[in-house]
């Protein structure tokens, strides 16, 4: 019982660490040339010097751009509690100009204890924002705009970006715009009038190096010695962890996993799975946990789909494949049925079913998205006559059939030709 209790506590601890980006990115950002230090320097200098600034954080999805920004903002809020207002927008939510201005007005009102009117028009809101910028500038307060998914704000007329950056041209205002995007060409998307007002400062977020990964693993997985966990349990856990981390097999697992996507969030998902598979009885991590996590994250959905198919569904897939090999550029259910019949005529088996049963199997394939309609229109036409195409490659189909349990020999023969 004692061990299990301890194990559950440590499990909770590590899981909450994984779900907390602030914890994850803290150790990666203490070196002076890290993005964290650079960003902090830029923003804090524009706060102290009371000037305007704009900056882009670029990097692949899940590389911790927002997390680092949040770390910096939290630090600055502690450092200058009265002089900063942070406005957070997200391109996925506020890419419309109207809703963006509304959200800005709402957050400004919240910060400054003003009454926010839901009914305010677009014009009211944008004028309110400009007025607030001026007022804050006069009071030597900085407004920081954090725009996540920055590339989405560059869609359409870019009115939000223009009015923001234009207002920042005046001497009185005091604001920092931080754009976060996974598109490396995000600044190229801007209109000329916006681009000329934007300072082209960019911070690039790169995937962590091997040493960083090792440091991160230790940081996330090892238990603290000064917590309410039993001391000998924590030492035992950490010793076991050290031996796993030093293991060559473990390093191989990590490197195969990170080959597909080396970002930090991707690694965290792996750690989460591995931790969830920890045996509560023994209370320690084992190499096996990481292996299981790797196999359950590296999935091949198409192969799984083929394994799920019934024999008749595979027959239909093979008929379609044969039609494609014959270079028939478009085909529908009726022509697939013709092919099915011709296969049956040359190799009679018991697997010959009526058209309506085949149609049901055909619909199952559509649901599994192994096949799809070539065009979206033509809803008036019934399913049998709408042209379809395969969305699975020849190699995938072949491999899937080989691993299919009790696949009829005739099908293997048909696909190999």
């Amino acid at each position, binding site marked *: 019982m004692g061990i299990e209790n301890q194990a559950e506590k440590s499990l909770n601890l590590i899981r909450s660490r994984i779900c907390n980006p602030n914890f994850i990115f803290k150790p990666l950002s203490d070196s002076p040339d890290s993005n964290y230090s650079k960003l902090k320097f830029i923003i804090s200098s524009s706060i102290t010097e009371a000037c305007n600034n704009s900056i882009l954080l670029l990097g692949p999805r899940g590389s911790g751009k927002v997390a680092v920004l949040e770390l910096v903002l939290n630090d600055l809020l502690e450092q200058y509690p009265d002089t900063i207002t942070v406005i957070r927008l997200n391109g996925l939510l506020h890419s419309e100009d109207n809703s963006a201005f509304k959200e800005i007005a709402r957050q400004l009102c919240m910060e400054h204890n003003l009454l926010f009117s839901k009914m305010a028009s677009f014009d009211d809101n944008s004028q309110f924002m400009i007025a607030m910028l001026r007022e804050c500038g006069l009071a030597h307060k900085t407004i920081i705009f954090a725009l996540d998914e920055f590339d989405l704000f560059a869609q359409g007329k870019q009115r939000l970006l223009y009015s923001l950056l234009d207002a920042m041209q005046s001497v009185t205002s005091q604001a920092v715009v931080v754009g976060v995007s996974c598109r490396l060409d995000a600044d190229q998307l801007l209109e000329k009038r916006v681009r000329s007002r934007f300072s082209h400062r960019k911070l690039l977020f790169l995937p962590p190096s091997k040493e960083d990964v090792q440091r991160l693993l230790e940081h996330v997985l090892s238990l603290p010695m000064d917590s309410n966990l039993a001391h000998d349990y924590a030492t035992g856990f950490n010793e076991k962890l050290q031996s796993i981390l030093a293991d060559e097999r473990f390093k191989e697992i990590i490197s195969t996993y990170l080959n597909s996507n080396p970002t930090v969030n991707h690694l965290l998902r792996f750690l989460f799975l591995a931790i969830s598979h920890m045996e509560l009885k023994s209370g320690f991590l084992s190499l096996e946990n990481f292996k299981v996590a790797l196999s359950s994250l590296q999935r091949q959905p198409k192969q799984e789909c083929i394994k799920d198919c019934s024999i008749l569904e595979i027959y239909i897939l093979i008929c379609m494949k044969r039609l494609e090999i014959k270079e028939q550029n478009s085909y529908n259910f009726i022509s697939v049925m013709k092919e099915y019949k011709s296969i049956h005529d040359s190799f009679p088996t018991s697997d010959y079913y009526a058209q309506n*049963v085949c149609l049901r199997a055909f619909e199952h394939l559509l649901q599994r998205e192994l096949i799809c309609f070539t065009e979206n229109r033509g809803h008036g036409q019934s399913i049998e006559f709408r042209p379809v195409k395969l969305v699975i490659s020849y190699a995938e189909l072949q491999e899937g059939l080989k691993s299919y*349990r009790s696949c009829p020999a005739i099908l293997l023969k048909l696909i190999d030709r």
Partner: protein
Amino acid sequence: MGKVESPEITRRATRSSSSTAVTSNEVETAKITEPYKPTLNDFVFGGERLSFDDLLSSFPSRGNQIRELLRLLGPVNSPMLPLFIYGGPSTGKTSTILQIFRYLSRPFVYASCLTCYSPRILFESVLNQLLLHKKNAANRYSSAKHCDKPADFVNFLREDLVGVIENLKRSSKKLGSNKPAGRPNGNMLYLIFDNLELIREWDKSSSILPFMFNLYDFLKLQEVGLIFISNTSPDTYYSNMGYTEHVPVYFPEYTEEDLRQILTRNQENRKLYSSFLDVVLRPFCRTTRRVDELSTAFSALFRKYCESLSDLASVPNEEMKRRLFSHFQPHIAPSLNEVFWVPSKSSTEVEINKDTRRKGSVRKSQGCEHFAQIDFHLSTSAKYLLISAFLASRNPATLDASLFDSTGGSDSRKRKRKASEKSMEQKEAAEQELLMKGPGTFPLERLLAIFQCIISVADSFDEEEHENDVLRVEGDGGLMSDVLLQLSSLCNANFIIKGKSCPLEGSTRYRSTISEDLALKVARSLKFPLPNYLYRR
């Protein structure tokens, strides 16, 4: 108005009735008389707590998935990355996850994108559940909050979630460690979104889908767990911008062995049923592996299997099995070719073999050609109308004149020419094109003209047969005023589809959906020489 009977079925009740195990709803039903006061307990299943063994035994061959999900959900109050559960239809995704929450009795909110068919309804349904708001006559069936933009939804959701989690924390602190059943366990709240694949067909799918996938990052609340359930695998979402990967949990399709376990589970006489499954399961598994489809097919077949049996409770021995099999065997092959089975009322052996899925168009299966008769009633004029619709859909309109001249179309077969290789190729290509195009559309006037032609032809045939019969000569009598009525009833039966109106002419165009087999069968019942009129390239 007087007494308004409000259907006060609580949320939990409707939900648990959809799952396999039946929850006892007595507690809820007792509360119907007095106005129901929603509490925090509404976030968990009422009734008795499920034990782990019950959970495992109610889902045969899902043990691995259940254990995996329990591991991922983790101990009480441990944060979680979003999960993505996927697998084919009727593999038990939804019911498994709901029963797991019943077993854990942790608070959760469930919303299916099938019933909530637009962003606004989805958002409001989640918010209503969080605020314990129930639509009823008193609030004029309105939602707690009006919200149709993702931006508003995030703000409301965060606000409400924080409130609910506060309450959960307070109540769990108050109760301490010993909790009665039906109380929320822990202060994590889980949001379950079912049928996620349907969002892709919504109008604003390109913005809603990335929003849903990134919901966890928007909320930034550790106490909220997100679970997405989808019929299609994660790779079908890749094309969407802003896609983020979640922890995948896969529910594979059941194997033959699993199916046997599941199907015998609720049977009274398991021995008898398993001897029945020995016969039917393997051949049926070759066509479909879905539990829902198999169980409906088997329920009727099993009745037939037991027909010759006097005592349903008897345990079958080898000899009896053999006897049952020989009695039952002729039914297997035809039933394999049936998709939908309707017991006919006409007490004959003939069953209507209908395919009512998708537009409910009726197709005759090729496998039962021995049913020469059509199995449903149609009036003679409706039959002629059906045939003329079929002809109008299949034949090119330019050929009508030559096919339906006064001699009755028999001379149209005289066009014989030696086919050169090139013309053969052309023929093939044309055939291919015809296959791709499917049945054509036609205006009402053309249908009526053909109808009139074939009726006069049929009358002339009749005259040849019984020359003395004076009464038969009715001329145009076949075209009566109720033809249009017949047409509309054929449309309603989906034999003929009413298409969109033609943009040039402005009149409605029709299209016949019946297969050639059915058309020939109808023609045979009328003794009408349909093949003479079919244009073959």
